[in-house]
């Protein structure tokens, strides 16, 4: 699907914003950057995009994530996201939760992915956003997978499609936003380290380094659940269940 650059793409690259300053680690935590407005951009996939036009979805989610991107391919299974040998770590224990983060993407084959997602000796990643291909998170139902990504500091995965259980676990835990791309091929055009913005309100992924934009499918009702921090937090926030059991 990755066509050669077209004239439109060239236009897009000239219209792009200047990359933001290198993100600090504070960026990678659960901060929401300030509302990020961008000029009218020519996007060869999605056509002319304005903030107003792209905000047409009913999603009330308006979070914006900005930072460097980590790029993976199709069919990234949960064994690659968190190898089974680390499943002895229990996500509900805070110290083991953090440790899971340090092993995020430890199962990616080194030859294909020479850059680690989390640097050796670190617990957090420098990459706020993950871009992937089709069927992201296939395989095991291990909730450790979205937990590891979230614990490492990633805020959003942007992929062409998801395996069902990974998507559901991401929403249930509120660990990462599992965002779907409108079209295929973004992962082939993005490179690890590119600076990107994910704008939920406008349902768009902007790659500032390449100057390209990619339309996202609205996250819909799952957005507020993730924003609240998962299904239990959302249910309490909205009064579906009693506010908090004495714990």
């Amino acid at each position, binding site marked *: *699907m990755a066509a050669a650059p077209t004239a439109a793409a060239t236009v897009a690259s000239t219209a792009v914003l200047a990359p933001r300053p290198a993100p600090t680690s504070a960026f990678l935590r659960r901060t929401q950057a300030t509302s990020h407005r961008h000029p009218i951009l020519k996007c060869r996939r999605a056509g002319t995009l304005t903030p107003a036009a792209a905000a047409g979805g009913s999603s009330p989610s308006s979070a914006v994530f900005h930072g460097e991107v980590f790029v993976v391919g*199709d*069919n990234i*299974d949960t*064994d*690659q996201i968190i*190898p*089974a*040998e680390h*499943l*002895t*770590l*229990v*996500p*509900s*224990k805070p110290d083991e939760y953090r440790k899971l983060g340090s092993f995020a993407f430890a*199962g*990616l*084959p*080194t*030859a294909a992915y020479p850059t680690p997602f989390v640097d050796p000796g670190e617990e957090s990643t420098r990459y706020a956003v993950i871009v992937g*291909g*089709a*069927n992201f998170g*296939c*395989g*095991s*139902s*291990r*909730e*450790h997978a979205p937990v590891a990504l979230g614990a490492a500091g990633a805020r959003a995965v942007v992929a*062409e*499609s*998801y*395996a*069902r*259980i990974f998507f*559901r*676990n991401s929403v*249930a*835990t509120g660990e990462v936003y599992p965002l779907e791309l409108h*079209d*295929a091929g973004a992962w082939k055009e993005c490179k690890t380290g590119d600076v990107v913005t994910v704008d939920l309100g406008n349902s768009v992924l902007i790659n500032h380094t390449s100057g390209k934009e990619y339309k996202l499918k609205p996250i819909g009702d799952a957005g507020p659940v993730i924003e609240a921090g*998962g*299904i*239990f937090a959302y249910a309490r926030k909205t009064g579906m269940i009693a506010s908090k*059991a*004495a*714990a």
Partner: protein
Amino acid sequence: MSSSVSAAAKASAAFAHKKELAAAAPAPTQHRAGSGRRSKPCRVRAVASPARAPRAPASTGSVKTAMTMTEKILARASERAGLEPGENVWVDVDVLMTHDVCGPGTIGIFKKEFGEDAKVWDREKVVIIPDHYIFTNDERANRNVDILRDFCMEQNIKYFYDIKDLSNFKANPDYKGVCHVALAQEGHCRPGEVLLGTDSHTCNAGAFGQFATGIGNTDAGFVLGTGKALLKVPPTIRFVLDGEMPPYLLAKDLILQIIGEISVSGATYKSMEFVGSTIESLNMEERMTLCNMVVEAGGKNGVVPADETTFKYLEGKTSVDYEPVYSDAQARFFSDYRFDVSKLEPVVAKPHSPDNRALARECKDVKIDRVYIGSCTGGKTEDFLAAAKVFLASGKKVKVPTFLVPATQKVWMDLYSLPVPGSGGKTCSQIFEEAGCDTPASPSCGACLGGPRDTYARMNEPMVCVSTTNRNFPGRMGHKEGQIYLASPYTAAASALTGYVTDPRDFLM
């Protein structure tokens, strides 16, 4: 989704069999004989309650909504007369299963959200099965089994299959082994019910004509507290498998064929229903092999209509009343696939994806380092009987290390006690010993998913393995550069005898 379109295009190019993809085009004449046959006396044992009316309300009357089996099960569990795919419904869960890998996290969420003193919704509907990381010195793995035990004691959980003496599994009469096989053997899989588990291969239980799927810790924590789950009703893809099963094929060949056909995302968010004369001829263990791997095609669940084979298997295993349901003749299916099984050949899934299908004979030049027979999908009694049949037919010795990991304690017992047909009374274990295989190991998930470094038969080197397990992702059995060829027990045994990926017809014909 564009991805599934391209995957389907790729698959159909490689597919030589008759297939029809017309959506919503049921072929009533092809519908399996058992459907709608509610007049057939069900061999259901009603122990505590009087016999029910033979028909559920949703299955009678002229105005009912035609539904697939999966839709019907979810309709009943949500007390709805009819359901459409895509609807989100709260269902009552009949059984929740968890194990040592996801149980501690599930318990952690349950306690955090419902309180330290909270009680599970029903102590008889929670089944807890240590099975993943058992025979290891990994302290955290051992601790996780302790967490399960403490919780089960505290909550008085009725079904906890504990192990305390790791040095000898036989000293633990309660210990079973791999959860999905244990669930079946202990009578927790019943037609018409909803079974959720914190393991993606929970879909295995669809072999019993029930809705069974995998969930995460957080959802499971919610179920523990409430007994309910919010589920989206999946559309159903129907797979019609007809024709006599050739003697060199096993259910693993069928499901690898299907996954190769529809790709690893071909059934994402969907139910896969298996019908046809071939399916009716399969025993329960083979039906489990089929349903076990629907998740490898992205499937939410798989189902096989319950029939006499199912009822017979369940005899003496459960005293719980159950009621099977069947797809209506007019039910709408997302799509239909048809296979003439008599024309299929033994297949493998090449590294590193379960849909990377090839004929076993096409891979005859692939040199292998080891063979692994085990797991929920490939370590049942029938799987070992199949492997033994090949060793017996050849009379030769294996050329590569061959590891055998029975799924459960019962399977292990079978290997040492059941005579292999045509062997003059030899057991599997005797045949394996004569063939030079490793001694059958302690029952557990073993090296199917790698696990702690000291796990038996874990691939700690970048080797090539033919395995009867269900996944061949990079690093799945341990080493990231390891190469796994998924295959039937026939093909695995034949490959062990030659040291190359081998079509079992070389020994069975």
